[in-house]
């Protein structure tokens, strides 16, 4: 009681604080959501108007129509193809990355071997080298070996992903070694132990990394932009970008297409919020 008595001299009364806090957070939330509301409203406006005049609060309600929606579902060109491409690519790349990266992480977490430290330092360094630095030589290499315009080359370099390896290693370090010993006594191979005993209990880690990688791959832009050439192979971000040219007249599709590309990831977020956060903050406390 005395502690509270002392404290109240220094700070706002509790109830006022709660009120100020709530008002502040709600206002902030509204501001943050403005761009998303704006593009949603934009989906009902004339695309050419929006591109010419920008998104605004000042919407003439009589001009709103469902024309963009009609266009999206009747005459959208390759849009749904891009959507499907992105979906398939995301699923494939996430599955591959989870498998390969957890496999590698297991090696680093559970064994002592020569070169382990050097190898792990390489993982950490790779984690801190932005891809943008590497894109040019990789792009040249891809062209040389004739793999441009293929999905293989979009996926392959990122299967052993440093950040994901790091996360899985941290998780595996918490698994008791007795489990592995028990497996060995039962005559399971080293790889069997990983696939049959360890992976099944790593589900929370797999979920967190699936979400984080899914979000990254769904929105991936720079590398596919460099590698992909043919329009029917484009992913959503690349396709949308091609609509954003001064010469295009597909602006209706650009606005509504941009909005629709948000929906899968938003739904996923609403369903699996805590995994997003677990994935995002994976490395934050280790620095």
């Amino acid at each position: 009681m005395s502690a509270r008595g002392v404290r109240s001299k220094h700070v706002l009364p509790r109830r006022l604080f709660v009120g100020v806090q709530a008002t502040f957070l709600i206002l902030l939330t509204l501001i943050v959501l403005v761009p998303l509301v704006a593009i949603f409203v934009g989906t009902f406006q004339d695309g050419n108007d929006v591109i010419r005049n920008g998104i605004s609060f000042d919407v003439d309600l009589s001009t709103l129509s469902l024309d963009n929606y009609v266009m999206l579902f009747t005459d959208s060109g390759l849009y749904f193809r891009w959507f499907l491409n992105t979906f398939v690519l995301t699923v494939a790349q996430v599955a591959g990355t989870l498998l390969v990266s957890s496999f590698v992480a297991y090696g680093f977490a559970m064994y002592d071997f020569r070169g382990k430290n050097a190898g792990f330092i390489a993982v950490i360094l790779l984690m801190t080298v932005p891809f943008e630095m590497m894109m040019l030589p990789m792009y040249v290499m891809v062209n040389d070996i004739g793999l441009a315009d293929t999905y293989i080359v979009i996926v392959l370099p990122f299967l052993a992903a440093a950040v994901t390896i790091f996360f899985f290693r941290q998780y595996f370090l918490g698994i008791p070694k007795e489990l592995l010993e028990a497996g060995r006594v039962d005559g399971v191979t080293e790889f069997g132990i990983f696939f049959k005993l360890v992976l099944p209990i790593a589900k929370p880690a797999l979920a967190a990394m699936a979400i984080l990688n899914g979000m990254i791959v769904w929105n991936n832009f720079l590398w596919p932009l460099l590698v992909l050439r043919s329009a029917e192979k484009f992913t959503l971000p690349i396709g949308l970008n091609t609509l954003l040219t001064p010469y295009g007249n597909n602006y209706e599709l650009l606005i509504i297409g941009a909005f629709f590309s948000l929906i899968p990831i938003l739904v996923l977020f609403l369903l699996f919020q805590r995994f997003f956060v677990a994935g995002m903050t994976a490395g934050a406390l280790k620095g």
Partner: protein
Amino acid sequence: MKKILYSQRWAPYFFIAPFVITLLGFWMVPLGRSVVMSTQEVLYGDATFIGLDNYVRLMGDRTFWKAMFNSARYMVLTLALLIPIPMFLAAVINSKIGSPRIKGFAKASLFVPALTSVVVAGIIFRLMFAETDSGLMNQIVGFFGFGPVRWLRQDIPGLIALLALALWRYTGVNIMYFIAGMQSIPTEYYEAASIDGAGRVQQFFRITVPNLKPTIVYVLTISVYGGLAMFLESFMLYAGNNSPNNQGLTVVGYLYRQGVQENDLGFASAVGVILLVVIMAINLTHLTLSGTFKKDRR
């Protein structure tokens, strides 16, 4: 074969093999090649060795320095905005009092922008910062009696748009980092402090901030190279890699322009090498100082 499957001596090498192959094939070989290419003039696939000429040319290249300046300026300003603001908001959301519902809702909503691709975020911000009277931002500044501003045509207004985009997309993410950090601070510290009569503000500066140091260092590191490597935000905001007067050109943007658009691979490689050296120097310093290497040698 059977022996290998059961061998604890050989197994780890199989486990880490995919990483080693990726490291060598997709990162080291291209990187080495890039270093070699930076000493060549590459024309239509024909490479001529020209020594350090690309670097000499780079040093005297005004556009390169402008790009460097832009990237550094963006990096410093994003640090100045994206550490204190999210830290304060995290403290508000993480405080024990107040409605958990409102706080949970705010936390989730603030994170949502991070889910949008740079492409979509860039399109939205480009349209909000339209230069006509009717653009959203011009309506707002108009309300206060200014403008209309030709946002993306001028240097500082363009920078403001770019920073607004960064603030919008990354505040929520950084809030998550800081909340995670705050939750690992023992509550006893706060109890002891309030018995000693420390107010909330005092507690924030005396307990929260010092104990958040590892998180701050982490956010600082990713923000430093994130800032220096920024390219897509500007690419989308200006609808391409050519902004008026190169006001939005970044180092990576310049690398992209020279390498992909102008096909001057040797020169672009030199840009890449310089940037890589800068980033590696920053990262190595940071990782050494924070003891990351020491920890793993143990």
